[in-house]
């Protein structure tokens, strides 16, 4: 994965204008407030959080066993499991499957792993059109940007940004339709 200059990205975002950073701050703070409100309604919240933390730690420290178990059970049910040692092998594996089916289009749900592997660019360069099914990811795909957050990929964009982007996109589609007719 190409190196992301976090500090430079952040500086560019802060200094771009007086709208984006304050809106981003407000949106994230609202998300935090909603989270606090939900948590305060559950008396055993902290115990649940501890338990979840223990489960996560247990799973991560026994990952080898769980992967083997998953592969065994999934294979039993007719699933083909692929292993890849790095991004190149991962992308190539996906591409080979698509190619063997003569696929030219693929839909993809939100995946940070595939973002890190830069799978989209890899497939596009080989003539496969990829469409993100998650709206935030789709917005980022159309912008040619990486997600700015793992579960809220387009949280740094304002409503006006998205409106402008979708308008441009619709103009582009209409132009293509006119040219092809």
């Amino acid at each position: 994965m190409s190196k992301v200059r976090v500090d430079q990205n952040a500086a560019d975002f802060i200094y771009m204008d007086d709208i984006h950073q304050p809106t981003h701050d407000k949106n994230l703070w609202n998300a935090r407030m909603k989270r606090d409100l939900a948590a305060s309604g559950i008396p055993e919240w902290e115990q649940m959080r501890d338990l979840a933390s223990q489960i996560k730690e247990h799973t991560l420290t026994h990952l080898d066993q769980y992967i083997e178990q998953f592969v065994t059970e999934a294979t039993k049910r007719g699933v083909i499991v692929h292993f890849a040692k790095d991004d190149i092998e991962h992308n190539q594996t996906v591409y080979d499957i698509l190619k063997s089916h003569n696929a030219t289009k693929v839909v993809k749900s939100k995946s940070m792993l595939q973002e890190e592997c830069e799978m989209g660019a890899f497939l596009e360069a080989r003539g496969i059109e990829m469409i993100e099914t998650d709206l935030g990811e789709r917005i980022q795909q159309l912008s040619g940007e990486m997600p700015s957050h793992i579960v809220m990929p387009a949280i740094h964009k304002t409503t006006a940004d998205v409106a402008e982007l979708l308008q441009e996109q619709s103009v582009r589609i209409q132009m293509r339709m006119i040219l092809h007719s």
Partner: protein
Amino acid sequence: MHFDAIPQTEKVKHVRKTTYELVEFLTDILKVKEFPWASYKHKVAIHNSCSAIRGLHIQSRSEWQEPYFNKTEQLLTMVEGVTIKQITRPDECCGFGGTFCVTDEAVSVKMGQDKVADYVNHEVDCIVSPDMSCLMHQEGIAKRGKAPLKFVHIAQVLNNGPF
């Protein structure tokens, strides 16, 4: 915590166990109940550093479902004249973060500016903290923004100066 670079002998363990931050030492060990010599007539906002909150736990963490407490506030309420003001984001990081303020200067400054704006919006005139580095960072930003705020260490208030 996780520091184990030197052998954990009995002596080392003893030093670790008996080393305290000022606020927790006054609150938990000396159990001070009054500061009759101190007077501080100011509208005060408290700033406990992230490490003091999340590491030393001298105040309850707002993202946790736990009863409210604040040892710094507990001490300051014993000082005559002090009015404690609650800001909107009382345990938000001020953006100093040691080398972070050099490596991520833009974010560090913005966080400091947001913190200072929070004080100004709540008509605070003084910020009291047990952490010098947070105070330094915020004071620098307030001065550049011409915000009329004083930044003092809690030891100055509890000792009645010098300011």
